């Protein structure tokens, strides 16, 4: 099933990507080309095969429930685009 321009607009919205209208035709065609490659998977018989998420099938390690991190707030905020009084600034969300 080939993607239409409207599908690409929807995917871009889901991915929070602002695309130029002029770019949509060639993006649509590139995505269809990639999905054409991906669809070759559907011919593979995977009945009874368990999905593999981690190559060594390791599970997430747990650690003791103790504080190990120190406060890096200043270092992290020093590289932010906009901060004030220790807070990250974004456009107004609530009127």
């Amino acid at each position: 099933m080939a993607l239409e321009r409207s599908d690409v607009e929807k995917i871009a919205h889901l991915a929070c990507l602002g695309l130029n209208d002029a770019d949509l035709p060639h993006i649509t065609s590139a995505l269809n080309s990639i999905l054409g490659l991906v669809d070759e998977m559907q011919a593979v018989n995977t009945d009874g095969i368990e999905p593999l998420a981690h190559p060594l099938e390791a599970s997430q390690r747990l650690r003791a429930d103790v504080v190990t991190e120190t406060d890096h707030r200043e270092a992290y905020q020093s590289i932010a685009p906009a901060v004030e009084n220790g807070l990250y600034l974004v456009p107004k969300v609530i009127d």
Partner: protein
Amino acid sequence: MHQLTLAEIARGLADKKFSSEELTKALLARITQLDPQLNSFISLTEDLALQQAKAADARRANGENGALLGAPIAHKDLFCTQGIRTSCGSKMLDNFKAPYDATVVAKLAAAGAVTLGKTNMDEFAMGSANESSYYGAVKNPWNLEHVPGGSSGGSAAAVAARLLPAATATDTGGSIRQPAAFTNLTGLKPTYGRVSRWGMIAYASSLDQGGPLARTAEDCAILLQGMAGFDANDSTSIDEPVPDYSASLNGSLQGLRIGVPKEYFSAGLDPRIADLVMASVEELKKLGAVVKEISLPNMQHAIPAYYVIAPAEASSNLSRFDGVRFGYRCENPKNLIDLYKRSRGEGFGPEVQRRIMVGAYALSAGYYDAYYLKAQKIRRLVKNDFMAAFTEVDIILGPTTPNPAWKLGAKNSDPVSAYLEDVYTITANLAGLPGLSMPAGFVDGLPVGVQLLAPYFQEGRLLNVAHQYQQNTDWHTRTPTGF
């Protein structure tokens, strides 16, 4: 001095033939003189390098020794370096000075390595040609009209051009081994979990792995020794002891069982590369290896599965770039959604946007089973093929790439044509296996690589085979004209 390998540098420093400061100054001057032709560096870190070189010389004067103490290296620009721009080849992170060092960076600095700079790369490591970088394409020192491979193209071009002896790199679908093959280097992608990913900007977390790029297997052993090891900060780091890789180099290959997969030699492989691969097999037979044809029947399904898994994980990982906490922020956002959309639309390049969208689509409601889950099932089939093969053979050998380095721009109009060039490297990432590419000859003046794959945690065996091969061949010593 620029022809010295890491091993030779360590001996020269120990014998006081030169100081790390002298070597560092010589290489920085060489980079300044020659890199404009290649564009292999995004940032040079001269002040840090001279400071680290002087500190290393002082440690040596105090009687300390170490293979990396005073050795000049560079880091692919996705390893976080505290206070130094870590761009990931993207406009998104052009202004990003990392607030901490990656584990790999910290470990190598502690071992006394000298950081000359940060190398160019495909944006967010997404590419096989180093053409998607915000900082421009990298050129192949063997032919400046050709690509150096990617995504670690800057590290590869710099080491191949003798701007420095070795560099760090990362490999998600071939990004160490393919540029190694394209530039006549030795490059090793370790077992998944062998090298810490902490502070390594994530592309596809279940596939990404850091490793060394150098001119010899001996140097890869030295650099890997400094990079490998358990790290509690990386939740997928594996707590396995790190062997002495340099000690593994000299073992005999008598009786080594080499598997050559018949699927590797189907249509699509340049027959001249096939001949060079078989010549390398003959060379290893002379050293005592025995050869057996094997089968990896699911190899052809690896590319489509990879182009679901990697983009899906990328779409999730790259959601952190929102224009709020770090990185690029658009001008005058109208509202919060506009801030997100325009920061990401303007900050990411076209290939990154394509992969984010493929991933977002594959993970979207109603498509998860058909794409991501299906790809993970194929991933198990690919792994099972290897597990079956390794009951019969010790290593698997084949070409690293089906073709030599292509011309700059040749594959820009159709991304899928470049994806298909990763056919031999992607399977090791899906299965998490270690893989190495080593120089094995030339086609039309461009280097050709042979890939070796081994069972989990057998990096030492890969280095052993490559080192023995390099003791009996001289492909890896060839230097590109003009460098």
